[in-house]
């Protein structure tokens, strides 16, 4: 481990109220499952030095229905998402995505709120949430606000979150149409994605990609062309003009473009 822990300061919160009070008075970086944060700690690339451990805040673990809205607590782990009958019924593409996050050890600790907050363009759950038009529920000691996921990210690893806010839940309205998810990485388990896609096949299709831009992205022009009855070849051409993948350590722009258009075709063929 390359980070000297003696210089780190951590407080633990046992309840949401306590956590929000700490965030109001003494802003700190929240830690939940630590599956991203401790990788940075081990590599010596962790910048924050003051933390608030919210792992024990049980009230953020629930997965429930509020009327017809699926409400996923920010601290729901991938394992709990995989095991949840409510998620299986209302958002099966999130079950599929959760199964492909790391291995069981990571699924047991990593949380959905953590994946949202970490804001990686490669976050496996984020295209699912974007295609589902998820709403991120943010709370501070004084207020609560709801931000659509398509407005949540402002750039690479940047979000609209204020320093005193915590993500408390992710809300999903009912989804009509067949859901689809696919992740392409170096190997099936334990890989960070080269490209990841989620789609909802409906009269107005909803399609989101990860790892093709600084943030997760919807592809509205491609969606509109499909909704207007374009052929899949035409839609693939629209997609190739709409996304601008890059070269990086995990893949090349050329490979990602080819795979993205192939995945669009696969989505359309398998949900038709």
């Amino acid at each position, binding site marked *: 481990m390359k980070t000297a822990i003696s210089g780190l300061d951590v407080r633990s919160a046992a309840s949401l109220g306590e956590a929000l009070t700490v965030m109001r008075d003494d802003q700190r970086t929240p830690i939940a499952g630590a599956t991203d944060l401790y990788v940075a700690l081990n590599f010596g690339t962790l910048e924050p030095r003051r933390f608030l451990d919210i792992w024990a805040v049980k009230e953020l673990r629930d997965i429930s229905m509020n009327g017809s809205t699926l409400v996923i607590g920010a601290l729901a782990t991938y394992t709990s998402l995989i095991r949840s009958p409510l998620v299986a019924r209302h958002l099966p593409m999130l079950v599929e995505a959760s199964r492909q996050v790391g*291995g069981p050890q990571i699924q047991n600790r990593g949380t959905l709120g953590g994946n949202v907050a970490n804001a990686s363009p490669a976050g496996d759950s984020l295209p699912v949430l974007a295609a589902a038009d998820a709403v991120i529920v943010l709370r501070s000691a004084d207020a609560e606000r709801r931000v659509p996921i398509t407005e949540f990210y402002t750039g690479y690893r940047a979000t609209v979150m204020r320093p005193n806010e915590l993500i408390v839940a992710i809300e999903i309205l009912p989804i009509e149409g067949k859901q689809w998810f696919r992740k392409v990485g170096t190997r099936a*388990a334990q890989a960070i994605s080269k490209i990841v896609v989620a789609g909802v096949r409906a009269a107005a299709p909803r399609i989101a990609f990860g790892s093709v831009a600084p943030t997760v992205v919807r592809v509205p022009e491609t969606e509109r062309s499909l909704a207007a009855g374009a052929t899949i070849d035409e839609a693939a051409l629209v997609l190739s003009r709409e996304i601008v993948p890059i070269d990086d350590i995990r893949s090349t722009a050329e490979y990602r473009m080819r795979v993205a258009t192939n995945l669009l075709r696969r989505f359309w063929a398998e949900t038709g």
Partner: protein
Amino acid sequence: MKFVLNGASTEVKAHPMARLLDVLREDCGLTGTKEGCGEGECGACTVLVDGEPVCSCLIPVAQVESADVVTIEGLGDDHPLQHLFMNEVGAQCGICTPGMIMAAIRLGATPTLDDIKIALAGNLCRCTGYSAIYRAVLKWKGMPPAPSRAEGTVR
């Protein structure tokens, strides 16, 4: 900091952000748990926390306050799965072995080969090619051996 370690209540004085891995090895003297990659990719440091396999390199020890932690030492020296890893040559260099065993230990009564592959998907082995490991786990559960070259893969 108090938690239950291999069935015995334990108290350690450690920084709350210390990795569980380091506390186990250095403060508790239990060196069966290995450090591999230090980034949650290899599974060598797998232990059980409240019955679930986790990477101890990614857990601040503060998060196991009052929890039940089981390491490879918690199985004793005579566990049937340990013997099967030896007898089936599921261990070669041995670095991945404690993590493999701790990732497999919570499998249900009659796992399929796919169940085993999923349970061990977070554990890397650079020696065995995995077949001997799957053989050891299948034999432990009294399941028939897999075909010599397993058809298809999961995950």
